[in-house]
């Protein structure tokens, strides 16, 4: 290994320990790591944005003489310039135009996407026969249908959770709680793998203590 490789590994280990030290308490090493992280990452993402969005996506399309729709990206450019008007008090209100554009586009687009892929698809896949297959399947199917139905009852806003309705809502919350508990328990393993990776790096790559 050359000097720079060794230097890189020592630097990486120092940064790793600096971040971990936050678990004990906030300290000067963590603050240093944080400052390095913020500075370099903000710079890094600007570089990616600049070359990828402004140069590759905008500039190459907008200046391509063979592109019959070369003028389209320029509308985006104008919207982009408008956002900078915030820097000037008098015309600052113009910066709301690009915001209004984004809000309209996102609201309209996602309204349909979420409706179709979240609501419609889930309803149609819940429509299924319950009493088929072995007793295990029957219980499983009933659970899915009952849970989905009661879960929806819980989300109902127009009726207070009282009486039979309240009972169903209660069952709905129980299902949600099982969902949350189960997903939580299920992710523990993958989270531990992340830590195993860092410990491997510290004790293996850096200190060479792992056989």
């Amino acid at each position, binding site marked *: 290994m050359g000097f720079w490789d060794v230097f890189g590994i020592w630097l990486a280990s120092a940064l790793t320990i600096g971040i971990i030290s936050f*678990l004990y308490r906030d300290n000067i090493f963590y603050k240093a790591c944080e400052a390095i992280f913020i500075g370099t990452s903000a710079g890094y993402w600007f570089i990616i944005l600049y070359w990828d969005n402004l140069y590759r996506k905008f500039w190459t399309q907008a200046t391509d003489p063979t592109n019959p729709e070369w003028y389209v990206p320029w509308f985006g450019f104008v919207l982009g310039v408008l956002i900078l008007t915030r820097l000037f008090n008098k015309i600052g209100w113009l910066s709301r135009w690009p915001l209004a554009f984004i809000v309209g586009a996102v609201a309209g687009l996602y309204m349909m996407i979420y409706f179709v892929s979240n609501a419609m698809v889930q309803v149609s896949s819940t429509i299924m026969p319950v009493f088929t297959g072995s007793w295990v399947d029957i219980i499983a199917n009933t659970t899915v249908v009952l849970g989905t139905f009661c879960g929806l009852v819980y989300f109902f806003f127009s009726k207070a959770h009282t009486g039979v309705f309240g009972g169903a809502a209660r069952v709905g919350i129980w299902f949600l709680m099982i969902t949350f508990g189960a997903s939580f328990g299920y992710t523990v393993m993958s989270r*531990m793998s992340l830590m195993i990776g860092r410990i491997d790096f510290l004790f293996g790559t850096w200190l060479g203590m792992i056989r």
Partner: protein
Amino acid sequence: MSDVAFRIPLVVLSDIGRVISLMFIGAGLLWILVRSLRAKEVDRRIVFLFIFIAVAAPILFPITFQERATLIVRRLFDKVESLPAGSRVLLAFDFDPAMAPEVQPMADAISRHCLTKGHKVVFMTLWATGQALLTQSLERVVKGEFPEKLDGVDYINLGFKAGNENVLNIIVTDFRMMFPTDVNGVPLDSTSIFDDIRSCKDLDLIISMGGGKPGIKEWVLYVGDRVNVPLGAGVAAVVAPQLYPYYPKQLLGLLGGVKGAAEYESELVRQYPHLEERGTPGLRMMGPQTLAHMVIMAFIVIGNISYFISRRRERKR
């Protein structure tokens, strides 16, 4: 109750580090338990310390826990075990270096098992990036551990062929059309292992190990569903839930992630104790996971004890 059913996790205590770290965890938990019996909350930094030790100790001083295979794993193990010696098994190494940490342990264990049983093994891969991994594990497991086995007689390496599911589409009717020769250029006709193998139909078992595309799904759709050959699989943990629906009809058994590998290794070592010294990476990788899960569960129990005790005290007041 049989002696196997309730076997206490076999912790091989050979290293002093192991003893110390386990004692530390045990004594620490006991101390926390006593504290919580007095209804005292544990500082989160102590939780952090424990979880760190629980993960780091098994990495530094290998600590393993004996697993008991779940049905989904045992069915695959039993199939390999029950096939008569000389059966033809195809092992597909459909993974790349990124997936290798999870999938390689199971690939090794299954290869070892097949060769120990005296099956004839055909190795291949649908992944260009899997070729090097396949060659390496052949060098290590097959040639290194079973020097008496002969290339072309007891096993053969077909290597990689481009074409994804099209490769499967063709070998399902004819191996030679896709693989005129093995990876070393030896014509299949001149190898004795391929004497009576023409297509996938002539195999006794197919096991695909991977987690991407092409992978298990392609093997199920293009091979398993079309010819009547049992199909087993080993996949990375994140992919496993998507494959459960294929079990048990289209998939004989399924190893999911390091846990699946560890279960298989356990069964293997139980059946063939001499294989233990060849290494059980799956069990070893499960060490930190198991200990971490146990520590978390212990903390949940302790947390509830201290909660109930403090609540009872409040009621008394």
